[in-house]
């Protein structure tokens, strides 16, 4: 099968592209900067419609991971990268007669801030979603699933908190903050949170390419199905990475207040011309909510439709993470 993978510079995109290639698929990767992968590569911006049409032509399937992933920044940037980018991919698939599109989404598209306890993939809700990233991804998912039809089968996969060796998003940030003593436990640290070890997420995306027809039109959450109290999960990851485990507790209201203020300040700075490069703020309201409310999911439908189950348990994943940091 000829597969185009967008956004292969991140951990999940790289590993999925390699996994598809390893099983014999004819894989091309597409992103703005060279990925360094030993695979045919197109350098382009997904929001560039002409470039996308050219890149997509001749493929059987497209796996769309490219997205702006962050907790701060200007709405216009998210809108362009995530909403326009996805619209461009869908349009290119439709125009080129591609039969399968796997859109990588996020559980945050249906998260309005309340706890999610054993729920399935609920409808993406751009108005309720918290923060620019989640809102833009909610619109993006609507656009992607809107392209599902007679010739093009679209499925949206929402991997929840993907982590693993080489991860700069979650593991990298946690470890960096833990090492600089900027990682408090928000609230009691008891909120149950599910996560996804990267190999399991890769397997699920590969399965989604294969099961696109059977699962078309659906959004499916992917996770390990092993929720843990957030404090325990973060401590386990820190321990595997050889970083100090957090001990300082910050009550949620205080964290949310500080987070809210930080959101506001960062937004102001970014709105100013020449605002400088702010980097990541220490905490945002979105992050405070993410780390103090429960998020875990009913995986039955995902497993049934994708004929997939997580192969690597949380415990094995932590051991592999520790190996990668040389802490075992």
């Amino acid at each position: 099968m000829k597969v185009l993978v967008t956004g292969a510079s991140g951990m999940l995109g790289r590993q999925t592209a390699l996994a598809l290639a390893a099983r014999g698929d004819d894989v091309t990767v597409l992103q703005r900067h060279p990925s360094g992968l030993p695979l045919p590569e197109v350098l382009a911006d997904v929001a560039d419609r002409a470039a996308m049409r050219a890149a997509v032509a001749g493929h059987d399937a497209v796996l769309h991971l490219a997205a702006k992933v962050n907790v701060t920044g200007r709405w216009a940037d998210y809108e362009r990268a995530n909403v326009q980018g996805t619209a461009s991919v869908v349009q290119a698939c439709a125009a080129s007669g591609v039969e399968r599109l796997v859109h990588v989404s996020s559980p945050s598209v249906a998260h309005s801030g309340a706890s999610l306890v054993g729920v399935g993939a609920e409808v993406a809700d751009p108005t309720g979603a918290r923060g620019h990233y989640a809102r833009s991804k909610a619109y993006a998912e609507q656009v992607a699933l809107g392209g599902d039809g007679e010739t093009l089968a679209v499925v949206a996969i929402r991997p929840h908190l993907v982590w693993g060796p080489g991860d700069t998003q979650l593991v990298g940030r946690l470890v960096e903050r833990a090492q600089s003593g900027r990682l408090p436990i928000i609230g009691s640290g008891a909120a149950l949170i599910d996560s996804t070890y990267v190999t399991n997420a890769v397997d699920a995306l590969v399965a989604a390419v294969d099961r696109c027809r059977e699962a078309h039109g659906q959004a499916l959450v992917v996770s390990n199905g092993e929720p843990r109290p957030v404090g325990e999960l973060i401590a386990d990851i820190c321990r595997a990475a050889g970083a100090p485990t957090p001990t300082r507790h910050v009550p949620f209201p205080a964290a949310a207040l500080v987070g809210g203020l930080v959101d506001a300040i960062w937004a102001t700075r970014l709105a100013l011309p020449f605002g400088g490069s702010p980097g990541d703020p220490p905490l945002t309201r979105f992050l405070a909510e993410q780390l103090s409310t429960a998020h875990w999911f009913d995986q039955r439908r995902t497993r049934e439709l994708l004929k997939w189950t997580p192969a690597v348990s949380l415990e094995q994943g932590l051991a592999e993470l520790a190996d990668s940091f040389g802490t075992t």
Partner: protein
Amino acid sequence: MTRASDAARLPPPLVGVDPAWSRLVRAVDAEGIARTWHLLDNGVTPTIGTLLCVHGNPTWSFLWRRFIAQAPPGWRVVAVDQLGMGWSERTTPRTLAQRVDDLGSLTEALGLTGPVVTLAHDWGGPISLGWALEHRDQLRAVVLTNTAVHQPADAAGPALIRLAHTPGVRQSSCVATPTFVRATTALSRPALPREVRDAFAAPYASAFRRQAVGDFVADIPFDPRHPSAPRLDDIAARLSELADVPALLLWGPRDPVFSDVYLRDLRKRMPHADVHRYEGASHLVTEDAPLAATHVWQWLADLADLPEADREADASDPPPTDQSAGEPLWAALSARSNDHATAIVELGAHERRVSFAQLESTVRDLAAGLVGAGVRPGHRVAMLVPPGADLSAAVYACWRVGASVVVADAGLGVRRMGRALRGSAPDHVIGIAKGLLLARAAGVPGQLIAAGPLDRATMALVGAAHSLADLARSGRSTPLPALPSPDGDPEMAVLFTSGATGPPKGVVYRQGQLRAQLAALRTTYRLTTEDRLVAAFAPFALYGPALGLGSAVPDMDVTAPDTLTATALADAVSAVDGTVVFASPAALRNVVATAHDLTPQHRHALAGVRLLMSAGAPVPASLLRAMTEVLPAAEAHTPYGMTECLPVADISLTEIEALGAGDGVCVGHPVAGVTVAVIALDADGRAVGDPAVTAGVTGEVCVRAAHLKDRYDQLWATERASRHSSGWHRTGDAGHLDDDGRLWVEGRLVHVVTGPDGPVTPVGPEQRIEALPQVDTAAVVGVGPAATQQTVVVVVRSGTAPPGEPRDGLAAPDLSAAVRASAGVPVAAVLVARALPVDIRHASKIDRSRVSDWATSVLVGKRAGRP
């Protein structure tokens, strides 16, 4: 000519009502005047039948919306708004007779020709019954909810309605203001949703529209000269004509208007009726207990299936036969009428000894006296007497008359016990002063009979008509009543479940079932007339005379088992040369704790005990082991069973220790005469298949036995749910059978964790976790929606907690790791708590549902306090 304001109309959109059900129908009324009715009608062409629903005052057909929504295929449901009521045409006042005729004329206009089931509430009851009596050819069944056809002699009349009946009050409360309309929907606890209350009030928005509400109240015949009195009396008198029509009575006992008094009256008139009392439900029973709609449809489905069900019953194995068939329960006592050996000893400040001969003659005298006081075969007699000679005499005398005894255990707590007794509707109450006062205060019906020494003034004060002593005296000169008919199998006892997960349930036993229970005890424990019983466990204290065993009641507060001391036990044993001791684990714990007070004489007496039985709550092997120091010659056993069937299985301490740990608690082999089978759990943790005797399969434990309960009392739907098919009782326990046929109990079915990888039963993992040195107790619970739950362990530490660990919250990492390593099942989170909530009665069953609620709060990140 109808004024515009009189006209029938369609209701606005309302919660739970499909506008397509609403229709207006023209039909002549009793006087031949054309009227327009509003109905809710699902419009189905019936292939099975029609459910004709008649509301009372001041409601309307909205009351029946769930019955329409849940109607199975083949059923038409027609719910009328009576003339002047709901959205039907406003008319001049209607009498009962007119309303019956109005309804008949409407069903004719509708062309309801096939089988009809009537369903009614409140004053719709007599109207529907009037219709039923006039349409016998098409009447299939009758369903009534909180209604009345007669003012029973023992009722003060529905006081509220009498008040509303007073003309001035009626005009102001029913018509001029919406007080009555609103009060009707304000009786429910918890309150009905506002939108539901508003929907009930919607058609009664003005004084004009409420006129019929007042007229309806005025038509209630409290006075025999009232124009509607003859018609109501006629309907009440003719209910006996419906003896062959299946009937279902659904009742909300908290109704201040149609209280249990009216249910008792209806049950007397329709003794064949199935009954379900929804404890806690009020006047609008179908609102307070929305499941009532489901239950009515189940009941109707069962009626249709009846011939088939009968065939099935014939095909299945017959329950084990009763070995002593035919012998009355008092046979063993009668056989010893000349025996001067001790039958009962009451220990304490005033030790009292009664011989078999004395007991037998007291029972005979008392039976004659009770007949003189109006106790009849089939009556229920509630017992509020502590175990001892008086209780035994009263119970056996009632049985001798052919009456049934209602035995409530003070362990239920006073309020729940009062409610349970009231619901059982006894015809008489025998009690000590405290008991009679409780019965009065709780509104328990029936004639009061005093037990024990009670002076005239106190008797008058509590309202006791007789005393046991007087009745025995008067009975001495009266001939012994005729023996109850030997053919039937009369009801003999009503006992109560502990109600750990809801109100206590009455459990009815017939004579054959009690006889079989005695036989099962005799066989399992090889009891002979050489044995003497020391019973510190209320229900078993009664069985001495029936088993032909001398018995002793230790000096203790029977309502508090942990008041049994080692010396009190030894005194009781030595008083009768006891060979068998029956005590609850709470009592044994205190015996072990006070064993240091035993003298050598005590120890000598205790060495004669050959058998120790302990039941009533889980009995730890360590406790039985500790008791061997107190009772060195006794074999320790723990029977497994429940109020509905005891014993089911039995295991000895030796066997427990030989078996070691396993998945659950081993309760041993089923005793002789009991069959145990398991309904396997499906992936969602539900027990949906058939019971099977397959080793190693975990599921709901089901039992069959000749000593299984007859039924739950006035809980038709509960009884239906507890019966798998003919003979099998679903215990609600989860467990499995091992290769050797032993039963292992793994927890309550409602506490099974239903995760994506299949069900997890709590007891096995709990036992493994409790083996950790740092754990005192553990509860394994599920969080999240059924079938996708995560397993969470809540532990009470046995030692001190490390710094930083909350007292109630997330466990420290090392405890968490140890628990995960020992649980044997995947665990999402480990929490600690200072204590776990337990049940009231035994103070030993962990309330896992409450623990689960608490864990759920903690694990969404909330501040949750303690469980």
